């Protein structure tokens, strides 16, 4: 994201705005220090002692994802494509989150695995575990660098600090609270961040709607500027670049199944939040409780983007293809431009705090996932075994520092990329899609052998990388996200096929060892115990959010 040099993006912050931002940072660090006092074992540090109530882990579950990509990327997509962006939420996220809560969490939580790779270790043994752990820490530190870069580029644009000063300052704050308090501090801050982000974006949306003349005014203005189809989410042809029938098919199976199920059910950053719950019931409910606010998030992220595209003169000019009047802005600047134009001092400070919160949320989530996987799955499993718990707690703290330093390095790498969203989607296609394939085959087919699993991971990732190289070198050409989607699809198919083809020629594990890890060997109840109240029932809550999401899809179709 390169903020425009020619358009004045500075936000004219006053003392009151700095005070509001400063207060937020004081709270963030305060939580780190307070959480430090409560940390007494490595389980506390990495999984918050499995003691968090479901609503806290549920909000943290979506907050970990409500980072830079979500807030800046989705408002940018809203400005560019209109209502079709809603698919990322209503087709992309909600069904996968409900699936994770109802079907997957009994295995994750019930196995007492402390991380997704550790579950792979229990199910498939060391080969798949090592491949998965290494690819996960590499991916986390690369994504942490992206988040850090985005955070620093906001500081640079708003406060006028040099980029490297901003990067180091931002890293220092995130490091301080994650190193002090571990996952508890990260999760508590994520919950706080969620409310600060809402406090920033909800008033912005309301003022924007007021100014554009309410919902009817927005419909008229967007229809006049960009055509009426931008006001309906389906079939989203402009968004996918496909004709209406294949666009619907592509959205449901491509985005809705492979991409989203792969992302939400195996992405440790999110799953770690649900693993920190205080009971299996709370762990199952975490992603489902998170799905309710997730369903509403696009209203304060996508809608402001659409409003900005009609209200902000430079952005409207850019969308109309009039680069001369656009003054160098692009869609990535959407939210900052809207804040600049609409919010007076006071709310401006809250909006700044919200943006900074969003950027830090992403980075802190990556760092805490990195140190858990590195400490447990690489260090404790393969390098230094059998030391007392205190030792691994210290390793976790040291690794947090190292991860942050590496992230500063990857932030500078990230600063060389102009399209960070494509880069990120590409990473997901490399790592999440093959993992999801192996995971799901291994879950439902007990014969899936350890050898097949690691070969599926390696070859699935290889297929995605190969297609990426083809796309980059012009063997075929697809636009950024289309390319990533094809890679994810290929990685999924190859990963699953390898599992099916290799298993017959290799040794499967004794089914008796696979209790709690494989569908057929587990007496899992998908339902709830009789008499469970609605608000404690994962199935009922999940059904509720699915029904609401389907209604939303029809209302805004």
């Amino acid at each position, binding site marked *: 994201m390169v903020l425009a040099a020619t358009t004045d993006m500075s936000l004219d912050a006053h003392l009151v705005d700095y005070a509001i931002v400063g207060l937020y940072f004081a709270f963030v660090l305060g939580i780190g220090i307070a959480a430090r006092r409560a940390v007494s074992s490595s389980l506390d540090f990495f999984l918050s002692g499995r003691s968090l*109530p479901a609503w806290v882990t549920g909000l943290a579950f979506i907050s970990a994802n409500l980072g830079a990509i979500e807030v800046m990327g989705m408002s940018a997509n809203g400005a560019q494509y209109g209502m079709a962006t809603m698919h990322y939420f209503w087709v992309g996220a909600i069904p996968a989150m409900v699936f994770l809560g109802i079907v997957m969490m009994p295995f994750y939580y019930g196995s007492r695995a402390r991380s997704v790779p550790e579950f792979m270790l229990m199910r498939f043994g060391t080969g798949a575990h090592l491949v998965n752990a290494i690819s996960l820490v590499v991916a986390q530190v690369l994504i942490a660098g992206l988040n850090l870069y985005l955070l620093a580029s906001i500081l640079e644009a708003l406060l006028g600090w040099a980029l490297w000063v901003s990067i180091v300052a931002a890293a220092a704050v995130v490091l301080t609270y994650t190193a002090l308090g571990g996952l508890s501090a990260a999760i508590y801050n994520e919950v706080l961040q969620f409310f*600060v982000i809402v*406090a920033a974006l909800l008033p912005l949306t309301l*003022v924007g709607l007021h*100014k554009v003349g309410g919902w009817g005014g927005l419909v008229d203005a967007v229809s006049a500027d960009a055509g009426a189809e931008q006001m309906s989410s389906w079939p989203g042809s402009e968004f996918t670049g496909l004709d209406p029938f294949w666009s619907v098919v592509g959205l449901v199976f491509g985005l809705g199944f492979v991409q989203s199920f792969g992302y939400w059910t195996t992405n440790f950053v999110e799953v770690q939040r649900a693993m920190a719950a205080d009971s299996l019931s709370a762990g199952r409910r975490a992603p489902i409780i998170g799905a309710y606010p997730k369903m509403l998030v696009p209203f304060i992220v996508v809608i402001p983007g659409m409003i900005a595209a009609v209200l902000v003169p430079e952005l409207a000019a850019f969308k109309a293809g009039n680069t001369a009047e656009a003054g160098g802005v692009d869609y990535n600047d959407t939210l900052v431009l809207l804040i600049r134009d609409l919010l007076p*001092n*006071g709310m401006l400070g809250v909006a700044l705090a919200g943006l900074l919160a969003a950027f830090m949320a992403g980075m802190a989530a990556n760092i805490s996932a990195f140190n858990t996987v590195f400490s447990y799955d690489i260090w404790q499993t393969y390098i230094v075994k059998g030391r007392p718990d205190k030792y691994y707690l210290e390793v976790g703290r040291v690794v947090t520092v190292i991860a942050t330093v590496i992230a500063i390095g990857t932030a500078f790498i990230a600063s060389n990329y102009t399209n960070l969203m494509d880069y990120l989607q590409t990473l997901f296609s490399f790592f999440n899609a093959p993992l999801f394939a192996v995971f799901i085959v291994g879950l439902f087919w007990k014969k899936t052998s350890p050898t097949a699993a690691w070969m599926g991971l390696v070859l699935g990732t290889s297929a995605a990388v190969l297609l990426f190289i083809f796309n980059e070198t012009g063997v075929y050409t697809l636009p950024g996200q289309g390319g990533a989607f094809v890679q994810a699809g290929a990685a999924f198919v190859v990963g699953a096929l390898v599992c099916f083809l290799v298993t017959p020629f290799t040794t499967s594990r004794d089914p008796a060892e696979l209790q709690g890890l494989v569908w057929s060997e587990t007496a899992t109840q998908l339902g709830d115990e009789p008499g469970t109240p609605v608000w404690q029932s994962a199935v009922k809550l999940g059904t509720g959010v699915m029904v609401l999401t389907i209604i939303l899809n029809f209302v805004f179709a």
Partner: protein
Amino acid sequence: MSDKQHTPGNDEGGAKTAGAFDIRMIIAMLIGVYGLVLVVTGLFFTSEADLAKADDFNINLWAGLGMLAAGAGFLAWSRLRPIVVKTPDEPANEQQKAHDT
């Protein structure tokens, strides 16, 4: 499974409430202070130019009032249903133990 942390009156035998370390108290404090600052800014320090910017809608005042209400809501929630943390033998469960403030 019962949601033990949300059951009030479950404080027999070594259990404590989380007190100020309850995340709801922290949210209430931050959002409440923001609301207060915004209301004061909206009432006394918002110029005509600021008002024009937000389409003659005193967003500082109204957002501030909204945040005060949200803060009060969280405060009430954490007061009415305090988080009760059991402090049994194994130290792993001391996670959210209150530090007296």
